[in-house]
């Protein structure tokens, strides 16, 4: 499914840039010069000109390794932080007002790291807090409501008086999904939401996500390092490397026919169940530090197709139709 004119655009991001750390003011500069340091400290460029649209009802997969900026992007999407450049709008409205998120319809599900649920609150308080605050629910209906929500995510209603530590990771993530659903969202950004779960439990939660999508017409942006998960769940996919999108397009097409050398390296070398006794072929080198970005195409330090001109200018996304990538060398060869 490609986003065409008929599909309503929910979330739109344009030219998103984000630099971590404060810009130096004159006091900082003075202190630095007194301490004898001539160059300003490097700042981390987490995002560098990312454009994104999310159409109603689609599942957008965002792939990348650690440090590629995908989590920062996710937080900027829902309004948990202000990117230092670019605009984020949801249904045409900015996603933040002041320092706070503005859209209740836009929610996020985090990785289960043991702190997705407030350890001091019972399940019914966790699920009921938001709806009561927003007048979606009368306090006396709390228990019926929570029982209903728990059933939606496949849990028995009698767990509502327990605390989060009494559940396994998979159950906690179900409760978290119930908590988010109770706010009646329309779009959910999932940041590594199944990464910490065992395979058999991960399959259950992924199926739950798909069931809920069908039932409530949800839209997902699914951030993950796991290409298998993304291949399974995404309609469209974006591959990121060091704060930039290097390839995007319909998932089936990108997985069947990856164009950018980085995407190819990821897809062709990753361990897969079907690759028995494979000879592992590694991309050389490591992801460069975002403090010290390579010039030009950020991947050129590790790329097998590298040409001298790769270090000169930053390539833009190119290609025809919905499947686009940022490698002029591949494009020229095609």
């Amino acid at each position, binding site marked *: 499914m490609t986003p065409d004119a008929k599909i309503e655009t929910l979330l739109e991001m344009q030219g998103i840039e984000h630099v971590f750390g404060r810009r130096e003011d004159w006091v900082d500069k003075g202190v630095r010069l007194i301490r004898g340091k001539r160059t300003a400290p490097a700042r981390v460029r987490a995002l560098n000109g990312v454009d994104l649209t999310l159409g109603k009802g689609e599942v957008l997969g965002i792939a990348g390794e650690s440090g590629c900026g995908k989590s920062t992007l996710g937080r900027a999407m829902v309004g948990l932080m202000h990117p230092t450049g670019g605009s984020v709008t949801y249904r045409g409205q900015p996603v933040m007002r002041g320092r706070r998120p503005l859209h209740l319809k836009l929610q996020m599900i985090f990785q289960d790291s043991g702190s997705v649920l407030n350890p001091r609150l019972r399940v019914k308080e966790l699920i009921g807090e938001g709806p009561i605050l927003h007048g979606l629910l009368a306090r006396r209906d709390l228990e019926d409501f929570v029982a209903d929500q728990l059933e939606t995510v496949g849990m028995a209603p009698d767990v509502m008086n327990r*605390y989060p530590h009494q559940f396994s990771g998979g159950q906690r993530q179900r409760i978290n999904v119930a908590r988010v659903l109770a706010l009646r969202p329309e779009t959910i950004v999932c940041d590594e939401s199944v990464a910490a779960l065992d395979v058999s439990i991960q399959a259950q939660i992924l199926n739950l996500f798909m069931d809920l999508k069908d039932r409530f017409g949800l839209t997902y942006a699914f951030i993950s390092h796991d290409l298998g998960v993304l291949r399974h769940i995404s309609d469209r996919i974006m591959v990121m490397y060091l704060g930039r999108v290097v390839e995007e397009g319909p998932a089936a097409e990108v997985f069947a026919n990856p164009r950018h050398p980085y995407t190819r390296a990821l897809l062709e070398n990753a361990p897969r169940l079907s690759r028995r006794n494979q000879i592992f072929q590694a991309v050389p080198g490591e992801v460069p530090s975002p403090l010290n970005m390579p010039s030009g195409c950020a991947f050129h330090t590790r790329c097998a197709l590298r040409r001298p001109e790769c270090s000169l200018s930053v390539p833009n996304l190119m290609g025809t139709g919905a499947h686009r990538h940022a490698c002029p060398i591949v494009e020229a060869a095609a």
Partner: protein
Amino acid sequence: MTSTPLARPTMRFSERPLGRFWREYSQSHAAVFGLVMTLILIAVAFLAPLIAPQDPYDLMQVDFMDSELPPGAIGGAGQTYVLGTDANGRDMLSALLFGLRASFMVALSSLGIALVFGTLMGLVSAYAGRWVDSLIMRIVDIQMSFPTILVAMMLMVTFGRGIDKTIFALAVVQWAYFARNVRASALVERSREYVLAAQLAQVPTFRILWRHILPNCLPPLMVIASIQLASAVSIEASLSFLGLGMPVTQPSLGMLISNGFGYLLGGKYWISVAPGIALGLTVFSLSLMSDRLRDMFNPRLKR
């Protein structure tokens, strides 16, 4: 809506937060001893008017003829002085119980004030950030760069002795520990996923602080509170020993020790030693407790 009859909370004690806390705490016998001793000491201190043989402040009950009697001596009216009497013929056991009461009262009230004020400052500092944070934390730094006892002495010298002034001085020297600690834990909690989730659910800031951040800062706060209680008791004793703390009409343990000090070399050891042991036992019990709490909340010691 479902109409399933819902099971009411039927959790066992051991599964509730307090039960889990106790299960872990009670693994150390020394700590259980410390807790039991502390509770006993607090109980006898506050029941002092009911259980003490005499009211040491009521001059009608004090028989000057019975002065400086050793422990176990029989007084003129036929009563036994279990811990002996002081120079004025006051029953040492009664003086000690009332002294303990004064010490605990001052320590606990100053702790309460410091805890509430410090926690408030710490939360504000962590959540407001920017210049508010800088301002509060610089005050904390300055406060903590002076020795505690010195600040307390200066305050007492300036304002004069008295219960309220002692409580005030002790609160002033303690709040900074709470503020710094609460700020540190609140900063950690603030970036946790459940707080971000609450922000996305548009829970008001005050409610996030009160309902989500504060309860999760409490465990380390308990450790600081238990350490500070021991320290408040001993600072108060030091002040009173130096004659700067409690008024003469309401002697605390420190003053009792100080009173007996002059008789120590004269062989009348009990006047100083009994309150000295009581003070030592109090601080020791509190320390056993705070050590255990600290170990429990130290993730490095968790296996």
